[in-house]
Every structure is written in C-alpha cells, then in structure tokens.
C-alpha cells in the first residue's frame, strides 16, 4: 500500500477569505510576525501501488473533482 497526497490551494490571484480570517486572528493570540495566511486542502489517497498508471489517475481525480482549475492549483506527491 502507498499513500498519495494531493494538496489543493487557492490560486494566488484569487481572494482567500478563510486565510484572511485565520490571519486576522493571529494578533489576538499574540503572534505579530505572520505576514499572510492562505488556506488550502490536503487529500490523502490510499492506493495499492503508486505506479505511473495510478499517479496519472490521481492527477485526473485532482483535476476533475478535488480541485476547480478556475480558482485552485493542485500538486500530487507520494508520501514517504
């Protein structure tokens, strides 16, 4: 068994209200040094084997369902 990680992040040019809310809360906790926060999603897919065919499939899954290419970017990597 292997684990494939898909990270989905809002595109840089897209407003991220959730990240802004998190960022806005930090000074209240006493953390002043954080310049910006962006919030994304992480998916962990358990697969039989992280071979080429499976990874191609994961890319397809990431592009069609896990992310919306209009507003988000994704990366795929195999967990160590």
């Amino acid at each position, binding site marked *: 068994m292997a684990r494939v990680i898909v990270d989905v992040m809002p595109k840089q040019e*897209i407003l991220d209200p959730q990240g802004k*809310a998190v960022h806005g809360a930090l000074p209240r906790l006493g953390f002043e040094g954080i310049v910006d926060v962006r919030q994304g999603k992480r998916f962990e897919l358990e697969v039989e084997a992280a071979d080429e065919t499976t990874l191609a499939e994961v890319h397809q899954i990431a592009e069609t369902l896990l992310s919306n290419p209009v507003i988000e970017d994704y990366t795929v990597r195999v967990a160590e």
Partner: protein
Amino acid sequence: MKIGVVTFPGSLDDTDAQRAVRLAGGEAVALWHGDHDLKGVDAVILPGGFSYGDYLRCGAIARFAPVMTEVIAAANGGMPVLGICNGFQILCESHLLPGALIRNDHRTFVCRDQELTVENTSTAWTSAFELDQQITIPLKNGEGGFVADEATLDRLEGEGNVVFRYVDVNPNGSMRDIAGITNERGNVVGLMPHPEHAVEDLCGPGTDGLGFFTSAVQSLVGQA
C-alpha cells in the same frame, strides 16, 4: 410546458421553485439527483440549497450526480436550464457556465432584498423583462462571490453574457458586480439571487421574480 426541478440531498428551495413554475402557468416536475431521467421535461431548474452539504466545494459533488449527465447533455442541446444560487454553483462546476463562486469577501452569510439590473433580455429566462429594468429579489448566500480571470470577464461583458448586475451594493465581492450570467446560446442562465422567493405579494419583496418563470414558459410555448 413541463419544467423539471432537481432535488439533490441538501436542496432547500426545490419546493419554492416548483411553486414558482406553477404560478407562471407551467407544470412543475420533480426530478431526483440519483435518476438518469429528465422525465420528458422541456426545461430544468437547479434550485438553491446546500447540495451534498457543500462538501469539497459548493456544487462540486452535485456536478457528478447521475441526473447531471442528462442535464449537461440537454443543456448542450439547447434546453433552457436555470441555476439559482447553489444551482449557479453547480452550473459553474459543470463548466456549463464560466467562472466560479467563492466565499463572500466579508466572510459572513448575507440575506437581503437585492436590487439587480437586467442586462440581457434575450435568454430563455429573461425575455419577460425590459432591458436595463431594475428588479428586487432576495439574495442569501455564504459563497456567492463570482470570480473569473480578466479575459473571461471581458468576454462575458463583450458578448453581452452578463445577465444581471448588483445595483448600489455588491453583497458578496463578485467581480464587476456580476450577479448572473448566461452561455453563448442564452439557454443556460445562473444567478446567485433567488427569483423563486419573489413570486407572490404575500411573501418576499414583490413579484419581480415571476418573470424568470413566465419567460421560460412563454419561450417554450413559442417553440411548440
């Protein structure tokens, strides 16, 4: 004239949409998300609500519901399709309409009687309105910010495919005050505000929403 209204798990305004269809003189047909069947309807409404709990992204899972295979094929064939709020999100996720809807810029849910300008009266759902007519219908959403890249926004405006724009107040951070859009053919329309909540004087801010449904019924009669 049969107008189908799809119920997804988590749809809220399907019954109101059916009622609006009947008040406009059409026959409302309940459609189920899990069926590969449009039951012979002449048009389809994707109603508001929180389909599949808004999990993943609003409309992202509904877009792959069995009934959507039929809705997408019918829309590509020219059938009138109206997406209201969550329905608009589903249409964008289905790529039947360009752009996407993201969380409101002010991060809070908004519920208000919203003034809109009707900028395109040649769609299947807006022919009953006058060009540049101002209408007031309820708006209620948490993720209603319309976004698209500059080229897409320019194209929407250049081709007259912006159908509704917010007046005075931009309630959710939508780019260029866009409240609703259509496809090139004018049969698919999506908007965040809820016309089905403005069809009777007793409830809501008036009857400005009725025109959406009479437009569709009339355009379908015209074809028959």
